């Protein structure tokens, strides 16, 4: 491990971001906010990659970050389409409307 203290700090930040995102997904009912929270979780992982990569002096972390960002964009692309349909169906973006499938 190189530069232990710095990387620990960044990882604590990333972990906080990750938890914030997770809590956001849990407590928000608005699907837009859930998506934003999801993006925060993804970016927390991205931040962790950048930090780890720079700690090891490798470009791999940044490469992974690019992949993460692309994934985020792709997910959002599909997600926004679904959000529109959700809004059209229920006239709201509250995911708690979705409870037909159960049992």
């Amino acid at each position, binding site marked *: 491990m190189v530069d232990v203290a710095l990387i620990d700090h960044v990882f604590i930040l990333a972990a906080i971001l990750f938890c914030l995102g997770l809590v956001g997904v849990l407590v928000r009912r608005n699907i837009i906010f859930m998506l934003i929270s999801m993006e925060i979780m993804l970016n927390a992982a991205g931040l962790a990659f950048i930090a780890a990569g720079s700690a090891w002096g490798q470009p791999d972390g940044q490469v992974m970050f690019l992949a993460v960002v692309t994934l985020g964009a*792709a*997910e959002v692309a599909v997600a926004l389409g*679904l959000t529109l349909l959700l809004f059209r169906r229920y006239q709201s973006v509250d995911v708690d409307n979705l409870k037909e499938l159960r049992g």
Partner: protein
Amino acid sequence: MTMTELHALLPIIVIAGISVVLMVMTAFFRHQRLASLITYGGFIAAAVLVAGQTGSGPQQATPLLIMDEYSRFFSLVILVTSLAATMLAYDYLRRSDVFKEEYYILLSLAVLGAVVLVSSNHFAAFFIGIELMSVSLFAMVGYMVQGRTRRAVTLEASVKYMILSGVSSSFLLFGIALVYADFGVLSFSGLHSLLGLHSTSSYSQIGAAMIVVGLAFKLSWVPFHMWTPDVYEGAPVPVTAFLATVSKVSVFAIIVRFFIESGAFRLEALVQALVWIAVLSMLVGNGLALLQQNIKRLLAYSSIAHLGYLMVAFIAIAGSNLANTNLAVEATAFYLVAYIVMSLIAFGIITTLSSPERAEEAETLAHFRGLFWQKPGLATAMGLALLSLAGIPLTIGFVGKFYVFAAGVAGQLWLLVGVLIVGSALGLYYYLRLIMEMCKAPDTEPAISREETPLENRVVLSALGLVLLVIGIFPNGLITTVHAAVAVLR
């Protein structure tokens, strides 16, 4: 990139080519038959290429991907499965009123992801593969939301799948980042001399746990399984067929490789956690299926249970005896194939009986009541699949379960073996219940359409049924193949 690497990557390039060609085609004219033929052709060509490379030894193509017997075997399995699933979907799509061609684009992208996934021995390729597959899949789950005659639950299923899948991907990624931070390596084999050996750092422990959590979601291990029944029920049934087979099998194949090559089995606490996940999967899956009335949900729960059975063999790999671990790896590979065959038949029959033009899927017991008297061929195939799922002798499912059982006994996993037996007994009940339903006298007003079964479905289903029986009676051919395929691991 050298020419040999290019040659090794050729199957993947062909699969990627399918989606590009389809996009160009769709841009200028729409034609479902042509699109389907291009897809079939691409899958067959890729499969032939993979088969042609079999036996040529391991080939590392770029640091990300490895083409060895193991990845070739599973690539082949995925391609053949996808071909069958695509053929089964043709008639269903034809009768629905949405754009059809994009389905093939999405499907070939998902297959591309799956093949990349099983060929990866590096976290980057692993992650790209799994996400390519997942993103394509949640587009496919929500594929029919636009149709005029849509099922109301499709949207719900796709939203749920998307959100949960996104959350699980984040777990997976964060886990990878933690492991990377600890060791500075992203390749599986690079971790082998590190992971679990210096246990001082909790980074890699938490990281490995988070990776397992992320994968557990994709594999619907209990308690990460909750999306499974909802998505299976809500998705159009051809998509469910694909989701239940290709995505499960590819992720399971790679988790086996990851655990063996990275030495993650040395993390004893994690293995202990896996034992409890396996116990829960077998019990909860079967318990939820017990009185389930919706066939798609029933199959979802049963697939949870089957993934639990698979875990018995998976955990048995952790043992120290080399012969036993080889047996366990073989058992997982064999059971995966068996699981594909059985599930594909079951979902294929639901696909065949469904009527998308009325936004109705053959998912209630009423659809199956008296099927033996109305459509004896389909009912026989369904009966075979159910018997195989229940693990009745002379079917592929029995041999698979026997294999898993043997692996569990050899690894002395008595708890897991015991639960496996209890789970199988519970399973017998609901599979036979469905068979009995098919044997009953039909309702006066049959719920299923009286249409002729399309040729494509008939061919695929009889081929699968034949495989189910032939491997059930002569399993040695597959056993030899599996044996050769898994020998490269470790």
